[in-house]
């Protein structure tokens, strides 16, 4: 109960966010011209061709490594945030512990920065993979006879 009065501004802000976004969507719904939609109007635009299948592409897996790196640095930040909020009542020997902690994780990040370029696909490798995937797809279409 004691914390609730401290966090009332957060509650106000959350309610304001919901109200504002909902209000903007509602206002656009009011101001929109209401015409009937048919399937030709609502289909996605693909330079004149007919779109087949859902519009989901497979991202390269390299973006996942950045998310993992972010999570690691985030956890490190949470630990350091705890330290920073303590108004320096701690004894001096903690400095070494903090240093070792930061060095361990930054060493890991340094390793990641060195080794990440090796996980990227160069131009030739991308070409090879693309050709392999294309021939696989053609072979599959040959088997199924044009889905």
């Amino acid at each position: 109960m004691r914390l609730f009065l401290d966090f009332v501004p957060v509650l106000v802000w959350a309610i304001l966010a919901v109200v504002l976004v909902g209000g903007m969507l509602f206002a656009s719904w009011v101001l929109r011209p209401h015409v009937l939609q048919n399937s030709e109007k609502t289909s996605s635009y693909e330079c004149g061709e007919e779109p087949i299948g859902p519009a989901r592409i497979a991202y390269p897996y390299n973006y996942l490594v950045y998310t993992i790196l972010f999570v690691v640095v985030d956890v490190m930040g949470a630990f350091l945030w705890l330290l920073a909020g303590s108004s320096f009542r701690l004894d001096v020997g903690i400095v070494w512990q903090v240093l070792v902690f930061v060095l361990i994780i930054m060493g890991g990040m340094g390793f990641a920065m060195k080794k990440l370029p090796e996980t990227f696909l160069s131009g030739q490798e991308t070409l090879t993979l693309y050709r392999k995937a294309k021939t696989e797809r053609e072979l599959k279409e040959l088997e199924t006879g044009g889905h």
Partner: protein
Amino acid sequence: MIPLSWYLAVSFILIGLGAYGMMVKRNLIRILIGAEIMGNGVNIALVAVSIYSPAFSFVGQGLIILVISVAAAHTALAMVLMLIYNRRYDTVDLGTPISLEDDEHV
């Protein structure tokens, strides 16, 4: 005052939900979500018991910090393993028959 058993009840409901999700679902991502829900339930129980215990020390809160960071690390690795599984078998379903014979790499 809210009695401790209420917090523990919520925690056990979350643990039960997480266990149900991990056992019943066949999609790998749902299983991971079930594991995380279970972890959240355990964290709630830990903090609640630590704060309500008579000899108060910061064991519960400190332990929670370590548990959350370890959960983050293992979720990251579970994600990578899931992607490897998908790259190999082209599905995220756990029920796919996996043969141990040595066929060519897809």
